């Protein structure tokens, strides 16, 4: 029997560029857009922000390569989202997040992968795919990617890179 095909992790019209300067502002901005599209529940924003305070999601990519910017992976429980998708957000300004594996420290983040996951038992682990992307793509290509403000180019690079992953 053929395995059921999973929905694509990235969709071109849900790639965003944000000029906000705080985590609350950028997550509010993107949450409102996702709510308009019916991708999340009205409670999504407050739950993501609440969770970020108690269980932060900043990831220090300096341990992978000192030239890479840091990322964050804001997310919340599956009951507050309607799809399984990753929302990439290029940040035009550095935004402070706390470190996921050391919540006592903070870092400046330049790119978000907001994870919408209504199927945590799904075939492939979304976070594992994001981390594979950040640790296996060449630093040069990643550096160019993280600086890009072209949503179409961001979408195409992610789609191609994640499709190539052998999970």
């Amino acid at each position, binding site marked *: 029997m053929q395995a059921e095909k999973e929905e694509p992790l990235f969709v071109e019209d849900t790639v965003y560029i944000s000029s906000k300067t705080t985590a609350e502002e950028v997550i509010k901005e993107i949450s409102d857009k996702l709510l308009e599209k019916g991708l999340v529940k009205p409670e999504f924003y407050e739950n993501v922000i609440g*969770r970020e305070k108690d269980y932060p999601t900043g990831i220090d990519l300096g341990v992978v390569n000192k030239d890479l910017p840091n990322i964050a*992976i804001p997310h919340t*429980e*599956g009951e507050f989202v309607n799809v399984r998708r990753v929302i990439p957000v290029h940040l035009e300004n550095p935004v402070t997040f706390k470190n996921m594996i050391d*919540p006592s420290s903070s870092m400046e983040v330049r790119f978000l992968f907001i994870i919408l996951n209504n199927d945590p038992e799904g075939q492939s682990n979304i976070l594992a795919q994001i981390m594979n992307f950040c640790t296996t793509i060449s630093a040069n290509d990643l550096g160019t990617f993280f600086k890009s403000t072209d949503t179409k180019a961001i979408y195409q690079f992610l789609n191609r890179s994640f499709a190539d992953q052998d999970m």
Partner: protein
Amino acid sequence: MIKILAACGAGVNSSHQIKDALEREMGDRGYDVQCDAVMVKDITEDKISNYDIFTPIAKTDLGFTPSIPVIDAGPILYRIPAMAKPVYDKVEETIKDKGLK
């Protein structure tokens, strides 16, 4: 069977990655391991007493002192073997020290 409890804030992403990684690596090292992934807020003293090892994503205040060994599993998230190995080694060391089967 050795029972491990992995935990993160939402119980959907990082704890599942820890679960997948620990079950795979400990299996490769010859141990019969089952790992459950849960939300930190759902952990009680009673629940944790059913497990052999607790592997949170970061230092976690549960509101009580866990009765089982605690090993911070955050470095596993990077999926970089050199970063994950010390965590795997510590889990294996605990399994051996405690005589877990």
